[in-house]
């Protein structure tokens, strides 16, 4: 950067204006690049990288609102500031002066529209291949039903609020969906606590068993473990004694491993959807100024 050039030199990362600042001037990049970022609930979001010759910070002058984004030098950048008062005096004398600014704003609106369209399309595409947590549980339980000779089955996941187990999906005789167990309570609560799958072919001899309305003689309960986190359990039961085999236990335990991954993915996707929604909302209302 040699002496004698126009404007002011900003070093890498130096703030030219901050989001929330009052807009008193607009800027034209003489050399270097400027990064525009916006603060969102999930951190700073990069809106644009502007190059030499581009105008920025103009919208706050026109809409009289505070800066809606932060501008920082990306590498060393030299920027010419244009005073609001002088700009509007010049525009009042020659309204055609605003044409170039309008062109820049139009280009940006087009670019934002394109980004918005892509985001919406990506969201739709993602929605097509991703299932919700409830849908994953129902799907997994359907598979389990076809694999073992069970009359009833359920997937119980840890409720983040109550820290107990509650039913997310079930099949078989109309069961009480509102059943909730605490960790360590009953066979399911115990499997969750130990993280070990269990097969009990005569539950009446097991002191942990909590009898309900359903007639149950045999039960397989496998934990749903993702990495080191116990997400919940999968239960299948039968009203007959000694129905399940050790192969049934192995099959369900294997299914539980993939089920846990699928449940976790569904949760991540759900979070991503929320973030995407916010991003689209933010992007719909942002401007580069």
């Amino acid at each position, binding site marked *: 950067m*040699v*002496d*004698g*050039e*126009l*404007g*002011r030199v900003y070093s890498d990362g130096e703030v030219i204006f901050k989001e929330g600042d009052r807009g008193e001037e607009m800027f*034209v990049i*003489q*050399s270097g690049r400027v990064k525009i970022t916006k603060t969102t609930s999930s951190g700073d979001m990069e809106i644009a990288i502007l190059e*030499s*010759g581009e*105008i920025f910070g103009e919208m706050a002058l026109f809409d009289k609102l505070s800066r809606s984004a932060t501008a920082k030098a990306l590498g060393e950048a030299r920027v*010419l*500031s*244009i*005073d609001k008062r*002088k*700009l509007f005096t*010049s525009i009042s004398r*020659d309204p*055609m*002066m605003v*044409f*170039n*600014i309008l062109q820049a704003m139009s280009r940006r609106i087009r670019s934002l529209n394109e980004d918005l369209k892509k985001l919406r399309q990506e969201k739709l595409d993602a929605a097509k291949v991703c299932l919700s947590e409830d849908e994953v549980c129902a799907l997994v339980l359907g598979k389990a039903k076809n694999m073992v000779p069970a009359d009833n089955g359920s997937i119980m996941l840890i409720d983040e609020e109550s820290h107990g187990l509650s039913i997310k999906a079930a099949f078989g005789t109309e069961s009480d969906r509102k059943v909730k167990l605490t960790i360590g309570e009953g066979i399911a609560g115990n499997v969750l606590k130990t993280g070990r799958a269990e097969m009990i072919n005569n539950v009446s001899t097991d002191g942990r068993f909590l009898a309900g309305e359903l007639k149950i003689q045999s039960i397989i309960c496998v934990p749903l473990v993702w990495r080191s986190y116990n997400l919940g359990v999968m239960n299948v039961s039968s009203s007959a004694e000694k129905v399940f085999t050790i192969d049934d236990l192995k099959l369900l335990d294997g299914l539980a491993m993939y089920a846990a991954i699928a449940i976790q993915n569904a949760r991540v996707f759900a979070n991503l959807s929320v973030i995407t929604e916010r991003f689209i909302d933010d992007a719909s209302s942002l401007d580069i100024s």
Partner: protein
Amino acid sequence: MAEGGRKSDSHVLDNGAKIAVIGGGPTGSFFSIFALKMAKMIDMDLEITIFEQKDFSQKGPGGCNRCGGVISELLVQTLAVEGINLPDSVIRKGINSYNLHTDQGDVYIATPSLDKSIATVHRGGGPRGVTETEKESFDNFLLGQAVKEGAAHSPAKIDGVERKNGRPRLFSKGQEMGEFDLVVGAFGLTSPTAKLFEEVGFGYRRPGMITAAMGEVALEREIISEYFGNSIHLFLLPMKDIKFAAIIPKDNYVTVCILGKNVTGKVVDDFIAHPKVRAVLPDSVPVKLSCRCFPRMNVGAPKKPFSDRMVMCGDAGSTRLFKDGIGAAYIMGKAAAKTVVFEGVGSDHFQKYYYPVYRDIVIDNLYGRFLFTVTDLYRKNSVFCRGMLSVVKSEQKRADSTKVLSSILWDMFTGNERYKSVFQRTLDVKMNMEQVKNMMKILAGRGHG
């Protein structure tokens, strides 16, 4: 073009209209750039040829358009907004302050932001003897922008203008260069072309002129940085024949610019030898400048700057008094382009849409004349001068933004604002009271002295 290939007599331009611009300085280039941009907005094809025989990349007087070469803060910003960013290769120095020197003292006036927002440039390839090649002349850059926009550049020297069937025709060395839908006169005041337009018979007469002086002094870059920094030095000295003078730093040269009435070589020598000037210049500078010229400056305005299919802009028409000639070229060139593209090329079109802008500059120059008369008073009267300096000095020490006199001087000498606006600020009661108070103190001090 009307049906059957016959040219339309309408004064509204059609697709394929041919425009000749005589003069490739800032006025001709600005006109061409904006006319082509505006025509594109409405899907109109214009065929613009700029006739300029001078090669602005040439070093020495042959490529120079002889002027101080200061692009005002307002013009730098306006051009940036218009998408015309002055590249580093054109700018010789970014300026962020002025030093005003009087025989009663000096004062420093800086831009409020301290940004380097004023550009100094060379109008040609550089002064006689310049060796560096990486820099570009301002006029060459602007002409290049016009060519990029779609204008053609012809080096032919126009030596004949006539009308036939209501349309202007141009000649060079006896050869017809073509018939045009419009001819734009954007030539310099001393150009023989001006006489050609006087002879066309629509009433055009060259504006009144004075002689100014320009000089170039070669200095080491480090010396210029040490002595001048990013500051232009202005001189309001009680010297006969000099209204004001400036020393303008430009990379490895400083330009000495003297404005007055018919400035001669002796006036220049006297100025350089003045102790106040010597105090600013390093000891190594010879008393006589090795490169100097005496350009004619426009101080008036022709009453009839247009007729059907002919319009005069820039120095050939009206320009700003003493200051910001390039800014005036921008205003007039663009005003003419707007009229031509969106309205028409008839005398009535120019009267209605171009003349008001032209007249604004003429009227503004009347305010300028008054302001320079007042400045003369300050320049010549030590009490007035000291009163002014003390107010400016106290303003410069203040953190608030109410620096009325500083802003008046800044806008007056940088050409940053219209003279009318500057004049309105001179009516500020508080500032005037402060000056009067200071003058009274000075007079009282003398009385006791």
